[in-house]
């Protein structure tokens, strides 16, 4: 395969799911062209053409073929550039099913509940949501201890699929903690996850790829102010 690969990534700087694709590409040392989309203004022709069904980011375009949905993109990167870097998914089918299960849990339950608590105007709903987020972090703490087997990451010595999935939300989580003065990832309740979070954010494949916490805090503050003036 000597032909020149053309890899493009359509995304936004603040999107945690776009960060997943960037981390995976970094792990495999893949060169790519990045295109920043203006989702609040006008979506590009390329985005609308590549993702006509959902019109969302990230979109990975490899030799003109679009791949959609962040976790699909990570698996695709893992398989396509399998010789270029560490394996992102575990090798044993049962471990792979666990990684996929927990990732789906994070995407379908944990993160949407966390986001809902920022949007809801009901204090009751917010409290209930935060309680669930906390309970589920305890589950993730157990999962981490069991899966990591004493290593730094879910993936072992090196960042893997589950690290990328949950880790990509850490900046938003920490930005939220800073903005609201909350303590969501609590060292007294989930000490292993807290340690993992620091390891993840300090890792070479992550630190220059995810946005800075303060930049996200500013973005959240502006976004909140704007949605309140519109409401």
């Amino acid at each position, binding site marked *: 395969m000597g032909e020149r690969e053309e890899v493009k990534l359509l995304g936004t700087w603040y999107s945690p799911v776009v960060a997943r694709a960037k981390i995976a590409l970094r792990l495999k040392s893949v060169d790519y062209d990045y295109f920043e989309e203006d989702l609040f203004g006008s979506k590009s022709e390329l985005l609308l053409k590549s993702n006509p069904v959902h019109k969302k980011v990230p979109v990975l375009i490899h030799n003109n073929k679009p791949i959609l*949905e962040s976790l699909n993109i990570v698996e*695709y990167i893992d398989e396509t550039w399998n010789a270029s870097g560490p394996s992102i998914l575990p090798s044993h089918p049962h471990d792979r099913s666990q990684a996929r299960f927990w990732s789906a*849990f994070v995407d379908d339950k944990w993160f949407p509940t966390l986001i809902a608590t920022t949007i809801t105007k009901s204090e009751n709903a917010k409290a209930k949501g935060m309680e669930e987020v906390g309970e589920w972090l305890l589950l993730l703490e157990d999962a981490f201890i069991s899966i990591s087997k004493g290593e730094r990451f879910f993936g072992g010595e090196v960042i893997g699929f589950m690290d990328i999935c949950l880790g990509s939300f850490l900046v938003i989580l920490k930005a939220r903690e800073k903005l609201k003065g909350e303590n969501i990832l609590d060292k007294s309740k989930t000490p292993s996850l807290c340690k993992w979070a620091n390891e993840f954010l300090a890792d070479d494949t992550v630190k220059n790829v995810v946005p800075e916490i303060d930049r996200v805090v500013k973005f959240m503050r502006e976004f909140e102010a704007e949605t309140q003036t519109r409401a």
Partner: protein
Amino acid sequence: MAEEVILLNFWPSMFGMRTMIALKEKKVKYEHREEDLINNKSALLLEMNPIYKKIPVLIHNGKPVCESVIQVQYIDEIWSDKNPLLPKDPYQRAQALFWADFIDKKLYVCGRKTWATKGEELEEAKKEFIDILKTLQSELGDKPYFGGNSFGFLDIVLIGFYSWFPAYQKFGNFSIEPESSILMDWGKRCMERESVATSLPDPERIGGFILQLKKLYGIE
């Protein structure tokens, strides 16, 4: 090595049908255990799927695998020597997974509305339902199966809904036939496979089940 494969299932579930079909396509011997989800979930189900407490649950040599799409991938990877279900090519695999997610997020939710809602909400749901079927039909194109010439992953993900289509139409009081004849032909073609014919329930039974659900949830 003696393999122990147990499937915790509930007969109307279009998700459970996926796992059953995948196991049958791979000719895996398994023990089928029917759960009574309405009255009494078994201790085994609660132990093996403590987070969602849902079926299907695949238990392989004592270890649980939850979520039907993840189960089909698992089955394909463990019993990889025969009848591959997912495409080998990473791009085609990514496509198949994208459409599986589309089916779960859009078709399932919309289908439910055809029997669980009324008035304006029902009318919107009926329109959306037909649009979703047209989108899937256009993805199928003129191929015999979603994967091409062979029955595979995406066919397995969608086919369970085929047993629910008559009920959706009956309760929603609409017809999907004229707009989705190609998809209906695909459904009939899949039903010719033993794995599918022995895994899908009689659509009449689904109708009866929906009546039971409506009573349970107090939906008129």
